């Protein structure tokens, strides 16, 4: 496990990135937890320290921590600090799955509205899958 400070692991939190700064922090922390790069029980810096490291306002980090806490991904212990939750990994996975299914449903609905048949939609999904698989193999080859 690497020991980079959390600010480095979260990546650049930038106005040029997608979403608001606080959403970027939430997403980046979920990504690190889901990928197992932040193990359960890992101590996180206080929101004041992280704000200074990321150079964002105190309220931005505070909101991100609050949202992650509500989602059960991190937890706070009065006087001890903030930690990655035991089941944070599963929870981020579950959230990611739910979001993927939601996006798929929306895509099917958009296809229907565009007059696509079931067969066309299935074909499109197969095509998307094979493109992604091809891309994965390509990446592996490059490495």
């Amino acid at each position, binding site marked *: 496990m690497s020991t980079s400070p959390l600010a480095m692991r979260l990546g650049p939190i930038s106005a040029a990135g997608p979403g608001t700064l606080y959403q970027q922090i939430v997403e980046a922390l979920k990504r690190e937890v889901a990928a197992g790069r932040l193990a359960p029980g890992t101590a996180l810096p206080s929101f*004041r320290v992280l704000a200074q490291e990321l150079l964002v*306002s105190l309220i931005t980090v505070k909101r991100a921590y609050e949202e992650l806490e509500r989602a059960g991904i991190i937890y706070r212990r009065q006087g001890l600090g903030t930690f990655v939750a035991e089941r944070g990994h599963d929870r981020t996975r579950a959230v990611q799955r739910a979001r993927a299914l939601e996006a798929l449903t929306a895509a099917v609905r958009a296809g229907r509205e565009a007059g696509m048949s079931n067969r066309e939609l299935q074909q499109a999904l197969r095509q998307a899958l094979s493109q992604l698989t091809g891309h994965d193999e390509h990446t592996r080859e490059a490495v």
Partner: protein
Amino acid sequence: MSQSDTAIHIRGLRKALGASFALGPLSLEIPRGTIWALVGPNGAGKTTLLNLLMGVVSPDGGEASLLGHDVHTEDVDIKRQVAFVSPDLNYSAWGTVGRTIDFVSAFYPDWDEERCERLQLQFGLQRSERIDALSFGARVKLSALLALARNPEVLLLDEPTIGLDPLARQLLFTELLGFMQDETRAIVISSHQLNELERLADHVAILSAGQLVASGAVPELLQRYVQLDVVLKQDRLIRRPGLKLLAWDGERARLLLDRATVEPQSLKSLDVEVIEERALTLEELFVGLIRNGNGYWRQRGMVGA
């Protein structure tokens, strides 16, 4: 909120400057642990407000206290616990940067020599530099260094970003967030450009023509105001508090709506069809709030019913 949680308390504060400008009456409560951006166009009253808080000028009425000390009668306590950063502070009497630092540091028992030396290095200030020869940006840096090394409880900064290059601004903001690691402290930082402070401040107070047009935590303000594109079914819009006309052409109009005053649904009764409802960025809200909506209204021949 108990008195001890309050860093700055302002109630009914007002000050007239000449015949044409009056600040207030203003009321504002700034808790410890927060960074406030005091924003407004040039001439809105930002410097006057900070000068009132520092006891540099006396108010015509109302009250203001810092850390429980009345700004007018207990200014000695305030000058000990509160630091002021301004490009206008004049240190030329001390000749050089080094002599200014030596002089100021002697006054403050909590002076942090280590931080002072680190900031000198980061800001690129040489002890031998003559005060008279300092650039505008370097004067701001010296002023910030003298304030931060004092370890004050409240830090007031008047337009500190004007003369700073982006790198120096980042250094300053990092120091300010470092200063806030102690949650009993508070910062008020003024600027006529909100976008410069958006990343640093968690609370905003927007001044326009001497009045406080909005104040509060940034996410709450962004929840409270909304931008509406509407079709006017009649040729006129009813003017009412909480609604501001941002743009108007033909039957379409863009409105800034304050949800705390007007419910978007209530527009239906005004014979207005809402096409689009959109959230604003802080910058858009700032511009929307400070623009002179009524003048625009008159200019376009649009008079409220």
